[in-house]
C-alpha cells in the first residue's frame, strides 16, 4: 500500500487518455467502454468481496434497478435522465440497506444467499412487468443530456466513463488506506478483533454493501444510456456471477486486480468468438486454469511473484 499504490493510477489515466487515439475502429472503442463500465462495477464489488469479505451474488440486480430507472422513469413519467439516475441509485441504496441490516446481524455469511434471492427476484420483476419494462424484449432508453448538451457519440461516452473510472480508482485507493478502509479490512481479517477495538461491524458491512450496490446502480444507468436499450439480461443471475468472477480472476482485495479482471472477462468472450459454439467451453477452461494456477487472482499472484505486493 501507500505511495506505490498510487503510481498505478497514473498508468491507468495514461492508458485511458491514449486509448481512443490508438484504437483502430469504433468496435474496439465500444469494447473499451464496456470494459471501463465493468471495471467501475467490479471496483465497488471488490471493496465488498475482497476487502470486507462479504459476498454478493445479486449485484446484477442492482445494476438492473439503475438501468431500468433510467429507462422507465424518463420514458413513462417524463423524468429528467439525471434525476432518474439519482432516483435509481437512491432506491438501490435504500433496498440494499433494508436487506443487509437484518442479514448482517446474523452470524455467518448469509449475504450470498440473500443477494442470490434478491437478484433473481429483481430479474423476474423486470421480465414480468412488461407494461413498464417491455418484458423479455427490453425497451429503448432515451438519450442522456445535461445543460443542453447531449451525450450521443461513443467518443463522448468514452471520455465520461474514462473520467468516472479514474475517479473510482482514486477513491477506492483512498478508501482502503483510511480509517474506514482499515476497519473494513480488519473485520475481514478478524471480526472479533475488530469488534473489541470498537468497530461497529454491522454498520461497516452495511455501509460497504450499500456503497457497492449504489456503484452498480449508477453504472447500470450509464450502461442503459450508452447502449440506448435495456434488456433483462443485464439484471440476470449469470451477469452477477460474471461480475464476481471478474473480482476473483483479477484478484480479491486488489484495486488493479479489479481492472484487470474486468478487462479480461469483457474481452475474452469477444476473443473466443472464433471458437464458434465452443466459446463457453473455452471460457470455462480458462477460468478453471486461472483458479488452479492463480488462486489469489492474477494481480496479487503476479505481484507477490515479482516481490512487490499491492
Amino acid at each position, binding site marked *: 500500500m501507500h505511495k506505490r499504490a498510487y503510481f498505478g493510477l497514473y498508468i491507468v489515466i495514461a492508458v485511458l487518455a491514449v486509448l481512443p487515439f490508438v484504437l483502430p475502429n469504433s468496435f474496439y472503442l465500444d469494447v473499451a467502454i464496456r470494459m471501463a463500465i465493468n471495471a467501475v462495477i467490479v471496483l465497488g464489488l471488490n471493496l465488498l468481496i475482497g476487502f470486507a469479505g462479504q459476498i454478493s451474488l445479486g449485484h446484477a440486480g442492482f445494476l438492473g434497478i439503475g438501468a431500468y430507472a433510467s429507462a422507465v422513469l424518463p420514458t413513462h413519467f417524463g423524468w429528467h435522465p439525471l434525476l432518474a439516475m439519482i432516483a435509481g441509485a437512491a432506491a438501490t441504496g435504500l433496498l440494499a440497506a433494508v436487506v443487509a441490516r437484518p442479514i448482517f446481524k446474523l452470524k455467518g455469511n448469509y449475504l450470498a444467499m440473500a443477494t442470490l434471492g434478491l437478484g433473481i427476484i429483481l430479474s423476474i420483476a423486470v421480465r414480468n412487468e412488461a407494461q413498464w419494462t417491455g418484458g423479455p424484449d427490453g425497451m429503448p432508453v432515451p438519450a442522456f443530456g445535461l445543460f443542453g448538451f447531449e451525450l450521443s457519440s461513443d467518443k463522448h461516452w468514452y471520455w465520461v466513463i474514462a473520467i468516472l473510472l479514474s475517479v473510482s480508482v482514486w477513491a477506492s485507493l483512498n478508501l482502503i488506506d483510511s480509517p*474506514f478502509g482499515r476497519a473494513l479490512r*480488519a473485520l475481514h481479517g478478524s471480526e472479533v478483533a475488530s469488534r473489541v477495538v470498537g468497530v461497529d461491524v454491522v454498520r461497516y458491512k452495511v455501509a460497504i454493501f450499500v456503497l457497492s450496490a449504489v456503484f452498480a446502480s449508477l453504472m447500470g444507468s450509464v450502461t442503459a444510456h450508452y447502449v440506448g436499450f435495456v434488456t433483462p439480461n443485464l439484471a440476470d443471475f449469470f451477469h452477477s456471477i460474471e461480475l464476481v468472477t471478474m473480482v476473483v480472476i483479477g484478484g480479491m482485495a486488489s484495486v488493479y486486480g479489479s481492472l484487470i479482471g474486468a478487462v479480461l472477462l469483457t474481452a475474452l468472450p469477444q476473443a473466443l468468438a472464433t471458437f464458434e459454439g465452443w466459446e463457453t467451453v473455452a471460457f470455462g477452461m480458462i477460468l478453471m486454469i486461472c483458479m488452479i494456477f492463480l488462486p489469489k487472482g492474477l494481480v496479487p499472484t503476479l505481484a507477490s511473484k515479482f516481490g512487490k505486493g499491492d
Partner: protein
Amino acid sequence: MALLDVSKLSIHFGGVKAVQEVSFSIDAGIVYSVIGPNGAGKTTLFNLITGVYKPTSGEIHLDGESIGGKSPDELARRGVARTFQNLQICMNMSAIENVMVGAHLRLDRNLIKAALRLPSLTRRDAELRGEAAELMRFVGLEKYVEARADAMPYGALKRLEIARALAMKPRLIFLDEPAAGLNPKETIEVDHLVRKVADSGITVVLVEHDMKMVMNLSDRILVLDYGKKLAEGTGAEVRKNPDVIAAYLGAHA
C-alpha cells in the same frame, strides 16, 4: 471505589454452566490475574466482561456504570481493551496497520472524507503511523514496523496484539495468555512487557498458565475451577489455600 466490579456473573451454554455466580472486584492500577485449570472458564469470563458473550445473569460495573451485556464496541469506547488466547491478528493487513486499527475510535471514520482523501485525514493518519511505530517499539517489535502480519513469527504476533490493544489507550486491558506457546526467553520478555504496561497506569487483568509469571506480576489473583470462584487473594494467600492446591494437584485434601 473499584474500577471493575463483577457480581454473581453467570453464563450457561445450554446445560453447561461455564461461569457460575462469580464475584470479584479490581482496583485501578493493579495487575489482577485469573488462573485455573483448563476449562475453568477463564477465557469465558474475559469474553463476558469484554462483551463478546452476553451474561445469563449477574452484574458488571465499570467505574460505577453497569456494562453487563454491552457490545464490544461500546466497551471499547469505555476504555476496555483485550488480547486473545488464540491469535486474532488481521493477516490481510500489514503489522503496523493492525496496530493502527486499535486507534479506530480515536479517528475520523467518515467514508466520504476518506474517499476524497481530505488532508485532515491523511495528516492524522501520518501521525497515527508514527504513534503505532512507537507502540511497536514499546512492545519490542521495532524490526517488524515495515512487515506484513502474515510474515511474522508467532511470538511477535502475540506482542502485536498487545500493541494493538495499547493503541486504544485503554484504562483496562485484558491479556488472555500472553505467554502461551512462547519459549522461556520470550516469556520473560512478555513478563517485563506486562510490567511496563501496568507501570504506564493501565489496569491489567491477566489470564496465564505460567505460574512464575503470575506470581511475579500479580497484585491479586482469582482462582476459577469448573466455572466457580475457588479462591481470591494475594499470591501468597492463594498459594496456601488448600482448595487451590487440591484443584491443581488433583488431590483430595
